[in-house]
């Protein structure tokens, strides 16, 4: 009962000019106790930490899923770093991630800022444009695989552009298809982020700029873009993480082919573990991915100042 009483009376003590609640009541309302974190912690430990540790152990073992796992020391590690396909897969992963960022960022900023306008037609069009976001990656990949069939799909109708339509038979075009399909699928998500962020930019900034005689381009580059800074960082981190963990798109569109030309690390891990039943090597590749993703995220966070995350509203009030 006491809690209810203090809670009910709390606003009364807080009202007034003070921007902070009074000390006493804060202590009463309190932060959530440690117990609140137990379910999430348990869940995380059980489904993230424990498997990670097990994968770490497995990467020093030889196991085909049938016999007892045997410790083989660094064997898996020396094998994957001597493996040209593995080295190539790291470069391919980075390339696809970079392509994703380079294609999706400008597109989604422009679309997001456009969609932030209040006009009715923009609302309708952006609603349609968000549809890919609602489809599963698998469905999207199956759809594009069919659309890009060289004999019965789009390439057969547009030979001036696609030539013989051998999109999945050459490395350059196969990578292009993968980058394009991811862009098609994920740009709406980032557009959504930028739309929200662009709507949050105070109109007074634009009004002031107009009085100062700034045109649309100057407004975009000197107000919109700097104001979107934090959203750009957020969206980029999402893109990088998404790019590093791309899997279904490759599984369905190219199966890592032709040959090993689009075998990115995540797919190579699956191939080693679940197609060749070399779980030790698969585990080692998985760890490489974890370490690489962690380093890259840290670098992005550091370089972008995300860790300090300045407000974009300085001097506004």
């Amino acid at each position, binding site marked *: 009962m006491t809690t209810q009483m203090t809670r009910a009376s709390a606003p009364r003590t807080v009202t007034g000019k003070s921007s902070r609640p009074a000390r006493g009541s804060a202590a009463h309302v309190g932060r959530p106790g440690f117990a609140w974190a137990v379910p999430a912690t348990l869940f995380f430990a059980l489904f993230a930490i424990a498997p990670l540790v097990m994968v770490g152990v497995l990467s020093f073992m030889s196991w085909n899923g049938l016999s007892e796992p045997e410790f083989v020391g660094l064997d898996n590690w020396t094998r994957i770093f001597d493996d040209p396909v593995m080295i190539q897969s790291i470069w391919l992963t980075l390339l696809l991630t970079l392509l994703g960022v380079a294609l999706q960022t400008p597109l989604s900023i422009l679309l997001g800022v456009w969609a932030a306008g209040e006009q009715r037609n923009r609302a309708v069009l952006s609603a349609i444009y968000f549809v890919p976001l609602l489809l599963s990656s698998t469905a999207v990949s199956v759809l594009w695989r069919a659309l890009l069939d060289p004999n019965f799909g789009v390439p057969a109708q547009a030979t001036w552009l696609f030539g013989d339509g*051998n999109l999945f038979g050459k490395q350059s075009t196969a990578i292009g298809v993968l980058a394009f399909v991811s862009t098609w699928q994920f740009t709406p998500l980032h557009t959504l982020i930028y739309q929200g962020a662009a709507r949050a930019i105070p109109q007074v900034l634009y009004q002031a700029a107009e009085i100062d005689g700034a045109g649309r381009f100057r407004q975009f580059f000197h107000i919109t873009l700097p104001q979107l800074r934090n959203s750009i960082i957020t969206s980029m981190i999402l893109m990088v993480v998404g790019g590093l963990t791309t899997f279904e798109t490759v599984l369905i569109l190219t*199966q890592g082919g032709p040959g090993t030309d689009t075998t990115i690390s995540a797919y190579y891990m699956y191939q080693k573990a679940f197609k060749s039943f070399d779980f030790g090597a698969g585990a080692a590749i998985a760890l490489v991915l974890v370490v690489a993703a962690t380093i890259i995220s840290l670098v992005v966070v550091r370089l972008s100042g995300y860790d300090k995350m300045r407000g974009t509203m300085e001097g506004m009030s």
Partner: protein
Amino acid sequence: MRTRVRFSRVLACGVALAAALTLTACGGNGASAGGDDKIHVLVYGDATNKVEKAVVDKFNKTSKVKVVLDTIPGADYQQKLQTIINTPQAPDVFFNWGGGSIQPFVKADLLLPLDDFIAKDAKLKDAFLPSVFDSAVLDGKAYGVPMRGTQPVLLFHNKKVLADAGVQPPKTWAELLDAVKTLKAKGITPIALGGGDQWPTLMWFEYLYDRIAGPELFKKALSGDKDAWASEDSKKALGMLKELVDAGAFGTNFDSVKFTDQGSPTLLARGKAGFELMGSWEYSTIQDFDKAFAEKSLGYTAFPSVPGGKGDAAALVGNTNNFYSVMKKTKHPEAVAEFLKLMYSDDFVKQQLAIGNLPTTTNTEQYLDTSASPAFSHFQFDLVKKAPTFQLSWDQAYPQSAATPMHQAVQQFVNGRLDADGFIKAMQALPTE
């Protein structure tokens, strides 16, 4: 009171978490072999399951030990099988392709040799065509009883396209090359190839090697003799294949075409291609989307002979059959033996034929006229019966771990990324055990 609220919430979350965990734990129980009076039979999930279901129902009517049929749908069968086979969820009897698909299980000592069963009932061996039965014999012991149908690889063609171009179905390699040139000159892709799937490309290697070097070369390579791949015959086969590719036989965009999404069979059925080398399932695949074409204009012949080659022109390659293998730890070996006897029963054979499969029992022949497509069934059965050897598809003869690098090497040789030496090296690097 506050603490109590907190506590109960924690408890609620804990219960929810525990519930979630037990649910996942239950999820895997579908194929448990635990029951005392049950045997679990695991099969590849597809349209043929209705026949397997009927056999199981028939068996359960009279048997004390009941059979439970479990299925794993489609393409992931082998992967899922290997992940459960050494766990308590493993079945008693399971579907497989013989050869390399069961070799790791034999090595891990998980399978029951069927020689005792055969000693008690010789028909478990003698009722099947020998070339087929042998695919599941490893280290001199039988590990599988054929079920479902045989699937030899045949050279299919579009009769109308060939007639319009004035081309006869080729009997020799030279005739095939001529046909390729004629069709290409007419602006038709001579041979449809689902290169995107990789295994259709492999079929060309399998036949050419068999025709030129006979079945021994591959047998040697599989037993670990890496020199087999570097032999003169091997180089000759690669050279002839290269000649075919360079002649434009497959067009230029074959690596973007797949069989599995009906890309390549559609090319054949629509008259955009003249030939396709494919397993006998090509017939039912095309029948599904163009019944009239399958019955009227779809032609089929054996793979052409290669004069001067050591191989027999009547030899076949493909999926010899599917098999039932038995786990060593099964609690009811007698019941399993009784169940396996149904695989050569007249009823089972008739039901398989009715849905388009071609069983490989010695009694199949008398029921061929009852099949879904009698002419095609007769043609296939005669081929299989006369075949001196029936080479199991390479990717199934080798251990599973070799399949991916083998497919990649095959694709890269045909699209020019690997030369003959590169291909030979890649094949030599494949694990053989």
